[in-house]
């Protein structure tokens, strides 16, 4: 397989697992974090459609992020499960500390922490580490992203 094909196949597979883990942790009531839903509501207010569109956007995002993993593996000249896991920790930290807190500023349907009382927006902001969505949110996100990295590191061969 060519490098691009390997990235596409294993990146997609890892993204599927990541999506499954995040959805599973939400279904198990560990967290209210639902990344596909948050992404989907960027484009539609309809809850059911948002999940479908969001799933597509999340898979696309997963592919892009897996490209960064592959780039890191290439730069290091090696890929392994533990290197993938390490990048997964960074990836989770980036999502929890940067992406989620910034989301209210760019999301058209999400309330911001500084929202004025006369404004009404319906999606509550996730807060730092996504803690507004439940105290187990950081853990669920960390586990899912580390598993994503471990899988990609283990399956992708330079």
């Amino acid at each position: 397989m060519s490098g691009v094909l390997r990235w596409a196949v294993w990146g997609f597979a890892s993204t599927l697992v990541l999506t499954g883990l995040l959805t599973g942790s939400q279904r198990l009531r560990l967290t209210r974090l639902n990344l596909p839903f948050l992404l989907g509501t960027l484009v539609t207010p309809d809850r059911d459609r948002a999940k479908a569109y969001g799933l597509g956007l999340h898979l696309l995002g997963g592919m892009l992020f897996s490209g960064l993993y592959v780039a890191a593996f290439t730069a290091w000249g090696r890929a392994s499960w533990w290197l993938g896991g390490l990048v997964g920790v960074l990836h989770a930290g980036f999502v929890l500390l940067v992406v989620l807190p910034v989301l209210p500023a760019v999301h058209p349907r999400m309330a911001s922490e500084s929202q004025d009382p006369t404004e009404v927006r319906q999606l509550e902001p996730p807060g730092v580490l996504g803690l507004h969505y439940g105290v187990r949110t950081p853990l669920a996100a960390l586990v899912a992203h580390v598993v994503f990295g471990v899988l990609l590191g283990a399956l992708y061969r330079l």
Partner: protein
Amino acid sequence: MRPVRIHDHAVIGDGHSAALVSRDGAVDWLCWPRFDSPSLFAGILDPEVGGAWCLRPAEPARVTREYLPDTNVLQTRFETDGGVLVVTDLMPVHEAHSRWPRPERELLRCVVCERGEVALDVRYEPRPDYGRARADIRDGGRLGWRLEHAGWLYTLRADVPLRPAAGGGLVGRESLRVGQRAHFSLTATDDAPAVLPPLGRFSWERVERTVEAWRRWAARCRYTGPYREAVVRSALALKLLTFGPSGAVVAAATTSLPETLGGKDNWDYRFCWVRDASFTARALYGLGYEAEAEAFVSWLLRATWLTQPRMGVFYDVYGRLREREEELPHLRGYAGSRPVRVGNAAATQLQLDSYGEVIDAVAQLARRSGRLARDELRMLVRLGEYVTKSWDAPDEGIWETRSGRRRHTFSRLSCWVALERLLELHRRGMFRGVKAPVERFRDVRERLWEELRTRAWNPRLESYVRVLDGDEVDADLLLMAWYGFEDARSERMRSTHRRILERLGVRDGLLFRNEDDVHEGEGAFGVCGFWRVGLLAKGAGSFMEAEAAFRRQLAYANDVGLYAEEISPDTGEARGNFPQAFTHVGLISAALELEEARPWREPLLEAPEIPGEEARA
């Protein structure tokens, strides 16, 4: 020591937090950045330790105050022998796309001398963390007076000179002549360089913008009946108690204001009670605030997601369970009412009535929007299944007593409502694609109906009763008609109403919650009087009786139209946490019921005396 009364306060806020301002110009309560954060000022709970921020004339003054019409901007007018001083208090509302950055939180106080010459006294005594932290205020020169605590920077900017006081805090005195103004801006920030809003005319621009924003919001109110002022004030109070980023409505802005003076029933109400759901949703929808109602119901669905099918009694503004309750022994408490508590251990109680209230609220959303997402439908089914398994269990009931579980009638009524609404949604075809155990829902609903008709009815008393097979009444039974279980005009409902009035009535239509409250010397419960108005309007009495009862309830608001949780049966003063969303929701619901029942073209008459009204006076 300055005496304070709950009744003497008004509230200002910004949809994140709220401040109580007393008639004598003191900010006696403020929690930043959120309703349930530790306080910066808690003078209402302890004038010496809690801290306050006072702006008032140095001389004795006659005080009148009002909210600027249709706003949450408070104006207090001090009339002294030498002149008139007007203080405008607000938490500014900002334009969505302002050219200037906004501070995270701001409390703005603008003073103007309208007549003569008046000396303004300033005393600023912040006491972070409920008065537990030392307030080390530093002079930042033109950048204001700075206080840092727990990562937060509180900055006071003023255009009158202030100086450190001997016992801590700041004091100042400035003589203002007619036309002269003074401005004070207190801001808080924790995540970026502080934004220091300019004073002077820029302060008045913020006042104007805030007035306009509130008026625009109030203009959306669809109620056009004769009690519009009271209804809009209640809507504005409800909006102040709504946490903007999530849509949650907190029960009250305060903790530990006592239900009995000197008593121990001092609870923290700065959380969102699931119990209030259907009442709040109906009130918001009824006034035309659909977006707010939808935000609230969406919050309910999100908040209960992590614990369902079990639901907590209440959640914090982000839908987190808050089970920890802590006492603050260093605070003396309002009028010596100890302990002062933060957090509320009632979180872990079982209140079966919550299920009916949430499902009723969601059903209202479904009736209006015509559809629910599949997730939401599945969640409703899970809640319904839980009801079919748990409806017979004893629980703490709607009033969350801490004296053990009983088989409350209202909890069963609410379970009946839950199943009735689920079956209604099923009849409307809402459950397409989602499997619901409709037969089980129907069976349990019938069993509940049978049980309520037999074991919740006491033929000797000729009344529905508080617990199954019991012989006490409870004001929550007034809601049997509101939920559609009984016709308000039925003989059963009329005689239940008579019995409630006889046993729980105080004077002028005030009602205790239940017979425990009568014995324990609690206050009359604000919302119960409004429930009675609703029942009368629905047909248990005449329209005139209902309207008269409504007007009597209106008389118990304080001078700026606000209600606490309870009303003292002796003095008519406010008791309990303040302002209380549930009471204001009750007022709105009663006004809406009255409008629905208003006979076409019937003139408004003077309130007639109602026989039996003084039964317990």
